[in-house]
């Protein structure tokens, strides 16, 4: 038994390092349950892996490679990078490899494929790897060289993080959802407010959050500088893990007397529809304050908000409406499975009828890659995760980050808008956020 109280994240790290207990600041080496690369980060990792000279990866079953950033291949160089990853997967017999048309955006895809379970320790050569904390896993982003060495050894080193405790209380209402909560939090603590730390969510407010919303919140932990973001495992988590056929979960609760650097309480009933203005995710405003600002493009999708419930929210607002003449609206389901579900539910018809384009799953426009790059002076409302200078295209373009409700309403209005401008009432949360 350990006698030093630990956070959720610390308990997972201690177990994976084979230690009874760990403390903040301690350097450990941990066994990894899964490691991830994509078509941008895998190619350099594969080159570095070659330099190690061990020939075979440590365990092909614990590696996941996903073609999602510049795919379907946007140009010749992107095609060649994707080819390096494809050949490596074949040569190393890595079965968790997803080709264009068979997978989707990595952080939407891996949970739905049942590859993540509670208690896992995961690294990914992508900063939004922290998404998987929604399922009670310790998951963090690294670079390509870290991925290369982990592929060779099955392990990596960590500095054990201290944590911020984010206590959620109160009930969400209306169109407010997970994205508003996380934007609000980042606005409060800043883009480095959780730097090197864990964000541990807890409290009676957690239970009402759908898994999709927890994914959205954990996903943007990195935008506050966090090493990882993590939710406790509850009935909803268990249901989700059973539904997707994940491995048996291992549940770690924070000790009641675990030390936190700070405790921040968020009353969900008081969080408004929130946006982040250019050029930092922490530059947040109440959406109502910036209504009327003209826009050129709306993007609904990404690893942050490309889930089925995000598409349901957008469709509920866009149903029988038309996208404003001055706006291009791009809807991107997160995975092929979500795409088909949206098709079955009639959501894609609603988007196409409204005058939006439905893209295959890709990270594409979020990082200014393809499928919706902005020109000089253009402004987008986007459900993605970053609004840095030049993020979605031209250095003089602007991105306003929002949840799916504000994004959809803005597409119809042709300017930043809240759903109240477009529809008279909001549907029941249970209807929009059902699994």
């Amino acid at each position, binding site marked *: 038994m350990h006698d030093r109280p630990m956070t959720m994240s610390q308990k997972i790290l201690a177990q994976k390092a084979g230690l009874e207990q760990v403390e903040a600041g301690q*350097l450990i080496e941990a066994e990894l349950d899964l490691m991830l690369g994509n078509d*941008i*980060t895998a*190619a*350099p990792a594969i*080159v*570095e892996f070659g*330099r*190690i*000279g*061990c020939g075979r990866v440590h365990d092909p079953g614990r590696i996941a490679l996903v073609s999602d*950033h*510049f795919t379907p291949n*946007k*140009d010749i*160089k*992107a095609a060649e*990078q994707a080819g390096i990853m494809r050949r490596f997967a074949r040569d190393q017999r890595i079965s968790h490899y997803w080709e264009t048309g068979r997978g989707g955006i990595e952080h939407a895809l891996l949970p739905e494929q049942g590859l993540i379970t509670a208690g896992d320790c995961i690294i*990914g*050569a*992508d*900063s939004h*790897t922290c998404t998987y904390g929604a399922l009670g896993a310790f998951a963090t*982003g*690294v*670079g*390509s*060289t*870290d991925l*290369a*060495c982990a592929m*060779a*050894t099955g392990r990596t*080193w960590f*500095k054990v993080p201290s944590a911020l405790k984010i206590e959620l209380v109160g009930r969400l209402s209306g169109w407010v959802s997970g994205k508003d909560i996380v934007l609000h939090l980042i606005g409060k603590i800043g*883009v*480095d407010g959780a*730097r*090197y730390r864990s964000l541990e969510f807890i409290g009676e407010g957690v239970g009402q959050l759908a898994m999709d919303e927890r994914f959205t919140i954990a996903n943007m932990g*990195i935008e506050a*500088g966090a*090493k990882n973001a993590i939710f406790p495992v509850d009935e909803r988590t268990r249901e989700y893990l059973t539904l997707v056929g994940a491995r048996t979960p291992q549940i770690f609760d924070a000790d009641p007397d675990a030390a936190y650097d700070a405790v921040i309480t968020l009353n969900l009933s008081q969080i408004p529809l929130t946006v982040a203005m250019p050029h*930092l995710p922490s530059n947040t405003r109440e959406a109502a304050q910036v209504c009327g600002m003209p826009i050129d493009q709306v993007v609904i999708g990404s690893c942050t908000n490309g889930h089925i419930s995000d598409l349901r929210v957008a469709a509920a607002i866009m149903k029988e409406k038309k996208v404003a003449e001055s706006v291009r609206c791009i809807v991107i389901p997160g995975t092929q499975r979500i795409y088909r579900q949206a098709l079955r539910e009639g959501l894609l018809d609603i988007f196409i009828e409204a005058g939006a384009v439905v893209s295959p799953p890709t990270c594409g426009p979020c*990082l*200014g*890659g393809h499928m919706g*790059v902005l020109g000089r002076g253009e402004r987008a409302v986007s459900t993605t995760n*970053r609004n*840095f*200078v*030049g*993020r979605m295209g031209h*250095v003089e373009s602007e991105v306003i980050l929002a949840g799916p409700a504000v994004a959809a309403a803005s597409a119809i209005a042709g300017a930043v808008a809240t759903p109240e401008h477009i529809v008279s009432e909001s549907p029941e949360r249970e209807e929009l956020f059902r699994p």
Partner: protein
Amino acid sequence: MNSMKNNTGIPHAAKTVQGRTHVYGDNIDTDVIIPARYLNTSDPRELAAHCLEDLDPEFINKIQPGDILVAGENFGCGSSREHAPIAIKAAGIACVIAASFARIFYRNAINIGLPILECPDAARALHSGDMVALDFETGEIRLIATAAEGGTTLPSNCIWKAQPFPLFIRDIIEAGGLVEATRRRLAQKRRSGV
């Protein structure tokens, strides 16, 4: 590589360097260090040609090999792209001094052998064009000529000390980066038959 023995663990051929500083602000993100439109390659020379271009289009023309990049808090925040430290290193920057680093960038810089020093006081005090001397053994950052005063008069408090690296990280650096450290460890494991 074996000859490198330095307390602060900076993987650099030289134990000391002198260079002219280029100072930027807080929260310099990896999207402005190397915009994603160039991520269809990981060739260091190609990446270097676009280093920091969305922050300062003149950056790559301004710098000389051996210059020092100085920034405020949270340098390298955002994407995990290792292309960012690679672009900076390949552009010829000898060291990045910042008040603080985002954690993925910090790991990536150490892993690929881009020297970094965390020193809030130096980051706040330095101005673009200052000449500094860095001692990677002691972590000392010394101002040797200021841009503002024509390089003649120096303030008295012009020596700062960077945060030392933990021993574990120093080992990675002294091996010449994470790949070499891992390669050696695996070889050792094979030899001892474990």
